[in-house]
């Protein structure tokens, strides 16, 4: 029982450290360059794709769990992983694999954004 609690605690700690670390790297890049949020998201996603395709991201996911999948680089991991798995099945799946794997995220973003737009209005800011 104690061992199980310890392992859960460790999992949270790892998720915190790795996820926070990825954000920290992004923040350092933002501080020292003038990259905007949109560019940071694209670069980190691409970094996820590249690292996954050369086999470096998978160990990180196994180590840190949500710490590696929740940042946008995890989205890249999902895409590349889908493409790599698809490639084993043939040309058609090699091409469609990436977006198939990411379909949940994209669908959720579109549907929820639509619903929020139905309900909410943007509001002006004071600070």
């Amino acid at each position, binding site marked *: 029982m104690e061992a199980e609690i310890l392992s859960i605690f460790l999992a949270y700690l790892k998720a915190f450290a790795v*996820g926070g670390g990825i954000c920290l790297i992004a923040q350092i890049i933002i501080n020292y360059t003038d990259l905007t949020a949109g560019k940071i998201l694209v670069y980190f996603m691409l970094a996820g*794709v590249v690292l996954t395709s050369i086999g470096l991201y998978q160990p990180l996911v196994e180590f840190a769990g949500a710490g590696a*999948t*929740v940042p946008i680089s995890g*989205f890249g991991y999902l895409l590349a992983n889908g493409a790599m798995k698809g490639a084993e099945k043939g040309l058609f799946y090699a*091409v469609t694999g*990436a977006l198939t794997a990411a379909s949940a*995220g994209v669908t959720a973003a579109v549907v929820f954004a639509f619903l929020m737009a139905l309900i909410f209005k943007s509001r002006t800011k004071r600070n």
Partner: protein
Amino acid sequence: MTGRTRENYNRNYLEYVKTQDPPTKHFKNCLAAFGVGGFICCIGQFIRYMLGYAGLSGDELAGSTSVILIFIGCLLTGLGVYDRIGRYAGAGSIVPITGFANSVTSPAIEFKTEGWIYGMAAKMFTVAGAIIVFGVFSGVIVGLVYLFL
């Protein structure tokens, strides 16, 4: 004194401006990004455990986790909370998947005044569209490379 003809003065001026810049609070920014980013990942980990207890596993588990996180991101954006977190946390709230949700939802809410089709729907991916475009394109390349290797 008009700038264009005096390239040299320009360069001096830009260097001078750099010396006048207010200091960026590196330590505070980085700490906020690390803390908030890590916290959001811990929420992700918590959702993973909960869904795991509910009997989900594999791709279904990973997909459902990100769907729930995206929902949280969208909702906080709609409530007008996420931009406040972002103002404070910087990359800590941009880089997690909730930041992606925020970048889809914020233009959708913002531009619905220009109509549902050309406003809300068309502008929805003004920021996040780049992620989909480069993601799909690089994914296809990875797939093709693996196919022919």
